[in-house]
């Protein structure tokens, strides 16, 4: 099976936010929940760089390690998903996640967070592929249709890559060797304990 990963080429990202709205569009994500966002460093200064961030679908995901109800699971494609039926909204995963991926709808009184929501790599959830229950809880399941996450597919500058680890690493390597510079596969060391040698 493929090992699915995200890779954001920070030398290409222009903070256009296509990835953010593509995600909203594909999954009908409500206001206030941001499965993906673009972070800009050195905003307005020389050396400004932007990176599109979402759940990185880590190897040995820390969210799964801290979850008291064991709602996380990893698919055969190494996509980290969770069950909203099991989730109790405790927020531990939010503290454990190095990328700030988990989101909470903040519904109800007394500080209750509601069920955690996050990027699914467009792979849905535990319910049957393509079922209405899956869509209502987790959004579309593009992987089951043989498609990749829409955020990367619609990226304006082909900065955000999503797909099989070997393939996207190869694309990035070739790009860096052709242009002669690259700021590395951002987040890979943290998420996957590896980096791309260029």
């Amino acid at each position, binding site marked *: 099976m493929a090992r699915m990963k995200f890779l954001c080429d920070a*030398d*290409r990202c*222009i*903070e*256009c*936010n*296509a990835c*953010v*709205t*593509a995600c*909203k*569009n*594909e*999954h*009908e994500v*409500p*206001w*206030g929940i941001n499965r993906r966002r673009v972070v800009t460093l050195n*905003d*307005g200064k*020389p*050396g*400004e*760089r*932007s990176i599109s961030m979402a759940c990185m679908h880590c190897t040995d995901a820390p969210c799964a390690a801290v979850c008291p109800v*064991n709602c996380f*699971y990893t*698919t*055969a*494609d190494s*996509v980290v998903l969770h*069950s909203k039926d099991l989730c109790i909204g405790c927020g531990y995963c939010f503290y454990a996640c190095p990328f700030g991926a988990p989101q909470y*709808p903040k519904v109800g009184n007394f500080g209750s967070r509601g069920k955690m929501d996050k990027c699914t790599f467009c*792979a*849905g959830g*535990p319910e049957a*592929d*393509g*079922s*209405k229950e*899956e*869509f*209502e809880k987790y959004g*579309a*399941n*593009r*992987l*089951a*249709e043989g498609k990749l996450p*829409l955020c990367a*597919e*619609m*990226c*304006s*500058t*082909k900065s955000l890559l999503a797909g099989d680890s070997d393939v996207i690493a190869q694309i990035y390597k070739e*790009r860096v060797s*052709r*242009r*002669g510079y690259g700021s590395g596969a951002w987040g890979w060391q943290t998420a996957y304990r590896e980096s791309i040698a260029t």
Partner: protein
Amino acid sequence: MLIKRTERQTRRSNLAATVGNHADGGLDRRSFLRRSGLVATGLATIGALPLATVRKAEAAGPNMAGATIRKSICTHCSVGCTVIAEVSNGVWVGQEPAWDSPINRGSHCAKGAAVRELVGGERRLKYPMKLTNGQWQRVSWDVAINEIGDKLMAIREKSGSDSVYWLGSAKMTDEGAYLFRKLGAFWGTNNTDHQARICHSTTVTGVANTWGYGAMTNSYTDIRNSKTQMIMGGNPAEAHPVSLQHLLEGAEMNKANVIVVDPRLTRTAAHATEYVRIRPGTDIPVLYGIMWHIIKNGWEDKEFIRQRVYGYEDARKEMEKWSPEEVERVSGVPGAQLARVAKMFATEKPSTLIWCMGQTQHTVGTANVRASCMLLLLTGNVGGPGMGANIFRGHDNVQGATDVGLDIVTLPFYYGLAEPAWKHWSRAWEVDYNYLLGRFDDKKIMETTGIPLTRWFDAVILAKDQVAQKDNVKAMFVQGHASNSITRIPDSLNGLKALELLVVADPHPTTWASLSVQAGRKENMYLLPIASQFECKGSRVASNRAMQWGEQIVKPIFESKDDLEVMYLIAKKCGFADPMFKNIKVDNNLPVAEDILREMNRGSWSTGYCGQSPERIKSHMAHQADFDMLTQRATKGPNKGDYYGLPWPCWGSPEVRHPGTPLLYNTNLAAMDGGGVFRARFGIEREEKRPDGTTVKVSLLADGNASKDSEIKDGYPEFTVGVLKKLGWDKDLTEAELAVITKVNPAAPDTVSWSTDLSGGVQRVALKHGCIPYGNGKARMNAFGLPDPIPVHREPIYTPRLDLVEKYPTLPDAKQFRLPNIGFSVQKAAVERGIAKQFPLILSSGRLVEYEGGGEETRSNKWLAELQQDMFIEINPADAAERGIKDGGWVWVLGTENSSKAKVKALVTERVGKGVAWMPFHFGGWFGGEDLRGNYPAGADPVVLGESANTITSYGYDPATGMQEPKVTLCQIRAA
């Protein structure tokens, strides 16, 4: 541990499937949205409507498996990204990447990836509304059209046809924009304008006056061939994000120089190899400063200049004035940096110069773009791959709407307004010239340019004797144009109040609604709901002159109507529908878009829209995968040999099968292969005065240079039947062609030209001999006829550099476009009153990626609105510290005119230099610190509101086009 496998293929699993599974179980759209956790405030309003009035948005029926795929074009900028829509039972349920598009290759920006929300419609104007005693009341279409028509006719009767202003839109299709101009012509006025006025009117005028056509010479994808990209006065990373795919990949492949010249360190500048910060409004000194280094080092392209450029010696005198010291004194750019830039641009070729509204939106906009063209000509960077003036137009169809003449200075396709132009169009429209003449107050006003949209309120509120037409403007019919994208909003409020009739036909109520109520307007205002272009079909022209056909994705939602239908209803009500739609089929009040395009084909010889038949354009859309991205040429399939979208000029009739012109003025290709030469538009020779007082005639035709395979190897004039006769080529004209030519001008058939010959014969014969129909002339460095034939620096009306005003004043006051332009007096008064002491900061404005234009549409889109929720002003940390302003805190921005003020949040950033502040121009719905949400019809208010930048912007108009000045004014900022 739960484990799930995702190997098996399932069918489409998003909204379609969900709605589908529920279709017979009764899940309607509202309960679906509730379940998925969406806030459905807008929908409450829909729910209250009688069911019959709302087109059912619910997908019904058991079979949802195969969603239909429909293709259209993104409605948000001029890149022309293909949008792939999945439609199920009349509902747009998903968007997919358009991999086959040779323009966007699947990509979108935030706006493009969110366009589906536009037809979700929660914040759309849902039905016609009428302002009654200051309250919005729902009316029927019939009532609205009848009342509007009666009022229009009454105003016409009393004040003449020019007292109604028809403000159209770059959001319309080509067919819509063309029909709107035609509506103006049949109504009897040249007061017909659209967003190009405030976007690239100065480009069109300046660039066309240089080498023939005022459009992007190359294309977004061709920038991949550049070795040096210079972006001056543009921020495509936010304004045209998908273009960055081509810019960045091109730069990576070629290891190209990317030079960004801008007052702000923009998101584009973040990817530059060289960033040049200039003082706003000093583009001309900087461009001359670059040229100074080029001529000093002998880097100019002497052979190119000799063969293809007129007026170089005159221009050189101006270039020599701009020594590095003077350039630095005026613009702040160090000489050494410009020497570096000059060397890159002149020696690491091909080089392209990219610009957008940073150059155009100035009182010197036309001169700015002229200076840019001069730099390209000086270095021989026009007419080949990787070169050229890559002018990034704004709206998705602003190029098309300009070409089809939705403009105050011309009839469709740049024919002008003189009698021959009217006669040409009366022949193309098959109406009697005298009928059209009779629609106007008189022949003189019929041939006089109209009032620019930038001055609409001046035309309403100035004394009657100041407005050079029968009466003031009394009615505005606005179809698809924001009011908050026009400068001097406080002045415009007086106009909004004084108008006798205001009609706003738009998918959203817009700031015309909220500001009118604020101005105290109580009656005689109508809002008509218009469908978005995704609910209509038709063609649109991207910045690279390529035409694409958009399909109707879903039917107009709520009570919205297609633009074309509204125009037909108005024409019918006002009694001129029969002659106007003589050759256009009308189906149930909806004119057929294809027929309109065919009518355009028949009359558009001057610009080469003549070969772009609906059949050819639709075939390109259907076979996008056959086109190569880099060359834009089809390598296989039914369109083999064509360039994608048949970029104009696409010569001859469709049967000639000209492939389109991907690069203008490219002599390396043959005419029938998309080649070209500079247009012989300004005569064949010019009398010049010598220093000794004698005169000499100088040729304006190319010298020893022509396009590949041309049978004439030298310059030649534009083709007429007479020219064909001289060459002995008239024998190639067919009997049928000659018959049409004789009908065009029975008295003097020899004068019938490439642009007036309705048979297309003259063009066909010229092409047959490898010649370009418009002649082979020189590009002009000296554009005689313009206010400044050779650009000179002029300080902005409101400048902080009082020391420079005396040497570089703005042009004297003059009457332009039926109105006085008192820029000189305003500048003089500002200097004398010491305005710059009270208002020491330069204020500029620009774009954000999430929003577009006046922004009411994009701020109504919840997916976009969430990303930019507050209007703000960028201020340098040093200026903020002096004023005790904290990042994120509220501030008052104070303007120079009308005691204007705006309450916005401060964004303290080094992005702007000290002494410069910057605001995005997409916000509206606040005025002077007051939230106007209550002024919108209920449920149709945008999600995000904020102060408009143009509340603070001030007086200043380009003398050649009436362009406003939103890029440089002065302000003061105080912590609130």
